[in-house]
């Protein structure tokens, strides 16, 4: 646990979901700090609160209580509109199931993220270099159904970083990939971290995948455990 000032700081973070009449605590006073440029792996059993933490950091849901800061922005005090803005430029998501828009080509999936962030749909020259690094430059005019799982995940990574977000949140990015593609995707993530200084938080169940990060954080019952 790093107690210095980081790009992400969570203190006494709690999240309680209400399922009917029952309150289900997902985070129970979590403390966490992530420094800019870190690649942090988050591991833990199902139901330990990993995805909830991601959803809060990513602005998909507000915390129930506690403090959570991303950069200089206090997420606990954000309105829905503020969180929408956060998702446009400050964070990028990579999901286990890729979550590409099936009707659009890979290029358009990336352009949507640019459009929503209010940027020119055509990526900048630096991003063209990243596309080559990802190895999908020749596959951009295909729809997701014509791409392999590995290619889809690389497009999803490209989409997540096209707006140069401060934080990349990867939720089980290799969960639907075979070993070869898993290694390729993990290598890419580490490469993005090393070459671009991209801050990455990655949820994984796989210890081998977790080892690609600078450090591994264990979660259990809604808290960070040593």
């Amino acid at each position: 646990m790093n107690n210095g000032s980081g790009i992400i700081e969570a203190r006494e973070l709690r999240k309680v979901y209400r399922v009917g009449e029952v309150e289900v605590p997902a985070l129970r006073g979590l403390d966490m700090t992530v420094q800019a440029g870190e690649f942090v792996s988050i591991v833990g059993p199902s139901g330990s609160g990993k995805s909830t933490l991601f959803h809060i950091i990513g602005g998909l849901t507000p915390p129930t209580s506690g403090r959570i800061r991303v950069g200089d922005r206090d997420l606990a005090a954000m309105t829905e509109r503020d969180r929408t803005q956060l998702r446009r430029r400050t964070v990028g998501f990579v999901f286990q199931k890729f979550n590409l828009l099936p009707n659009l080509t890979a290029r358009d999936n990336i352009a949507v993220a640019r459009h929503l962030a209010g940027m020119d749909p055509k990526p900048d020259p630096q991003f063209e270099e990243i596309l080559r690094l990802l190895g999908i430059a020749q596959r951009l005019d295909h729809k997701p159904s014509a791409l392999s799982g590995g290619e889809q995940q690389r497009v999803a990574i490209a989409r997540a970083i096209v707006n140069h977000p401060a934080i990349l949140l990867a939720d089980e990015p290799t969960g639907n990939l075979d070993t070869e593609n898993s290694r390729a995707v993990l290598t890419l993530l580490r490469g993005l971290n090393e070459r671009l200084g991209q801050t990455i938080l990655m949820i994984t169940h796989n210890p081998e995948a977790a080892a690609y990060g600078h450090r591994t954080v264990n979660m259990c019952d809604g808290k960070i455990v040593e």
Partner: protein
Amino acid sequence: MTGKIVKENLKHRPMRSLLSILLMGVPVTLILCLVGLSNGLIDENNLRTRGIGADVIVRPTGSTLLSLSGGMSEKFADVLAKQPHVALAMGVVNQPVEGVTLGATGINLELFNRMSGGFHFLAGGPFQGPDDVIVDEYYAQQKHLKIGSHVNLLNHDWRVCGIIESGKLTRIALPLKILQERSGNIGKVSQIYLKLDDPKNTDMVVDYLKNLSPFKEDQYPIYSVEEWTSLFNASNIPGLRPFTFVVIGIGVVIGFAVVCLSMYMAVLQRTREIGILKSLGGSNGFILGIVLAEALILGVGGTALGIGMSYGAYWLIRTLVPASFPMVIVYVWWPIAGGITLIGAALGALYPGLSAARHDPIEALAYE
């Protein structure tokens, strides 16, 4: 980018898109056919009235725009013929033969020829005997009649002696005396047309006749032909305007229901995609905008198809029943019908659109 997403969404489910467009086109066709038929009937009627060559119309007391009362004595025609500036007076008998849109007219052909310049015969010629009928080209087409064909009208067999160019007085002309006998109107006429010595005297003659006994006491409706044809429009035909509004209402409801159902299904199918867009920073307004834009495009497609189908209906009606229903294409109603459809589409898309916009992104992303 919104346009591309909408386009790809529509292309992704082509059958759903095409069915929605088809269903939205139906009320457009319905509205355009109704307006086309009513305008066609009115235009044709006015055209034929002007084709008589008369300047003044005298109608029976108690008659309305669409109906004639029991008629009036044919001797009134003789009385009217002797009034100042009246060059010719011609009484006719009108008798419905098929519904309210098609009627036969009993005429004195010699008087009619003097008043109008006569029919332009496309085949055959004037009455040769008491059972002869003259029909116009459209009625002949509708009933597949030729010279010498027999047609049953008013429970009597008539021989077609002439086929005329449409546009003067009537589609079916019968000898006046014979129709008076067959319709139980002996000695009576339905209306009287007057030709004046100079059309400039029309207003003066109309005023004069309105103050002439017995037309004044019994309040006989007397009009100049210009006034009469201007009165005969969609606004003045009882029930037509409310009926049009009912059809428009049905159009809005159908458009609303089709779009609501179609977009609701689409939103359900795209729950995960909505979650993806939200995770990328898509606002509620952006999501709502996509649904509304898609519905409006379906509405535009429905309008275009509806206009196309109205041409199909026009061709069908003009081919099968050109005399009974002289439909016309009323271009000015295209944007109106389109506007009605778009309103229905926008209203129909509102609920599914708001429902999509309010999706919780986490639940939407977890949707299988």
